[in-house]
């Protein structure tokens, strides 16, 4: 696999941003970055189907697009090196070894992909519901904030004016 192989493909909007093999690799990586959350019955970010959204976000920024492309190349190579197979087919321990090696080789790559992954994950309605946030945009319903008891201000009201007179 080369850097050119994993570059963003120019496709119509409805088509995946990257091909199926890279989608599978990226999904496995996303599951490591944001793993399943058992108590909320939430799968990892990859199993939630966010690989395409992450790839599309990356494609909007030339710098991030090249980071994603290069990361997938390196991860594929490291999986072969450490486990003799593709990254998605590695056991959890071998996946971690490959990721640690990637983090050592390209320290900025995983934080950059985390940026994209977190941004996609925490706006997904399934995730918002699981963390107790309304699974909808703020507008148009907004939020109800209870009226404030300004009795809290009583100690301040007792102060004499303290602005500096001129």
């Amino acid at each position: 696999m080369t850097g050119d192989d994993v570059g963003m493909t120019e496709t119509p909007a409805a088509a995946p941003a990257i091909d199926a093999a890279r989608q599978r690799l990226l999904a496995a990586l996303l599951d490591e970055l944001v793993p399943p959350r058992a108590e909320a019955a939430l799968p990892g970010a990859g199993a939630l189907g966010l690989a395409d959204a992450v790839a599309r976000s990356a494609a909007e920024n030339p710098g991030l697009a090249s980071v994603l492309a290069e990361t997938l190349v390196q991860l594929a190579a490291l999986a072969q090196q450490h486990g003799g197979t593709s990254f998605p087919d590695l056991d959890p321990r071998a996946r971690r070894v490959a990721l640690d090696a990637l983090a050592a080789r390209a320290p900025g790559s995983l934080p950059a992909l985390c940026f994209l992954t977190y941004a996609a994950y925490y706006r997904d309605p399934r995730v918002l519901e699981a963390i107790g946030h309304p699974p909808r945009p703020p507008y148009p319903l907004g939020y109800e904030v209870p009226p404030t008891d300004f009795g809290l201000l009583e100690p301040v009201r007792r102060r004499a004016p303290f602005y500096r007179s001129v």
Partner: protein
Amino acid sequence: MADDPVDVLIIGAGAAGAAFAWSLAETRMNILCLEQGDWMNPAEYPTAGLDCEARGQSDFAFSPNTRQRPADYPVNDAESPIAISNFNAVGGSTILYAGHFPRMKPSDFRVRSLDGVADDWPLDYATLEPYWAENDRMMGVAGLAGDPAYPPKEPTLPPVPLGKLGETVARGFNELGWHWWPSDSAIATRPYGDRAPCINLGPCVSGCAQGAKASTDLTYWPAAIRAGVRLETRCRVREITVRPDGLADGVVYYDADGVERRQRAEIVVLACNGVGTPRLLLNSRSPQFPDGLANRNGLVGRNLMFHPYGMVMGIFDEPLDGYQGPTGCGLMSHEFYETDRARGFVRGFSYELLRGFGPVTTALWGLASGRVPWGPDHHRGFGDVIDRMAGLIAICEDLPEEHNRVVLDPELRDGHGIPAPKIEYQLSDNSRRMLDYGVARAQEALTAAGARSTFVEAPLRLAGWHLMGTARMGTDPARSVVDEWGRSHDVRNLFVIDGSVFVTAGAVNPTCTIQGLALYIADRIKKNLGNLFE
């Protein structure tokens, strides 16, 4: 548009340009405003979508260098510890501002007399008071009367609710015996004119889809246009031109199609903010003004002041519902506003409450700070901070220093090939000490409120919202660019009405004072129409 001369040409349709245009409209003069941005459509603001937080990092980012909308011009702020934040549209930066709307204080206009630093203003608090009040009425300002930190004033609307988060932080201030007060907020807490009431969407700083926040596209501009002012959008001014006698006679600009145009005018008014105004003046070179228009004393662009921000986030054990309610409007504290030399610096700072972040911002902040790692500990780290953060911003008074300035970048150009601004700015020792002090006290306040840990960023880099001082006002032509009512000392029919004219910065958000000054200058022009150029 034909090149028919107009009586008054305003450049910039933001906070100042809108207020000025509305006020001057009653003269029935022929008034035109050229704005490089376009009208915004509130229905397209980020809070209408689930991707609202992410869009705050892209097409609604604070930095024009990140946003890169067609209306934006680049700013070289790479060497400054504080980066420029702005917005270019009808409404200007009021589209993205938090709406925090406190007035400056009486002492802010007398810093030389009181503290022996910088310069006194050529006007005072009492002079501006009626213009602040008129501006409050036009913008619709929520607040609470009776604040002992101010001379008496009457807000037009009830205060923004504090919510659980604000009440928690307020108790911390009470515990320490420190001043706090509900923020003066340019937010309609009740239906106000044509504006719908606030429904607590959260991130006011990416535009208010509800239309409750007082951006001037919703407040002043509809009234000004009804009164006869013409507003042309997507028109970027390249330079102001002058007659042989040195008076301004109009501008050269690029229209919405990119075609170079000329517009003649009897009076030219600059309202492009503390970076855009000096940029345009410095780009307006002529045989009469080889160093830039109105710049015979070399002060155009100098004395740039920000408000260095010290941000302290506290992490609490209980959920605080902080994603609900206006981001930057809740409470303010002026406990440390006035000079106390025992603190190790002159002048002072205010605090502004920062409500919590939404899930995406929380996760990204946690990523940057190491609190929300990737991998097996991700959910534990996220659960530890989501909806459990409250913040305080120390808004520090910067003092004017001539070496802090806006210049023209020798290489960087905007989309029309016009030289872009470059920021040369260093944080002074006084501002540094003030920031350190403000951060330490904020940590105390948040701890008293129940925070189990705090996180500090100071100075906050992406906080160069308040752009002041680069065409300062004064009575001495050797030490100021414009006189006490905004008129250039060098060019008698050229006025500056934005934050550039500030002599000092105060320690509060400047928009309400920028607009008060714009109304004051418009009033002075109206009263002196007969001898305006003498």
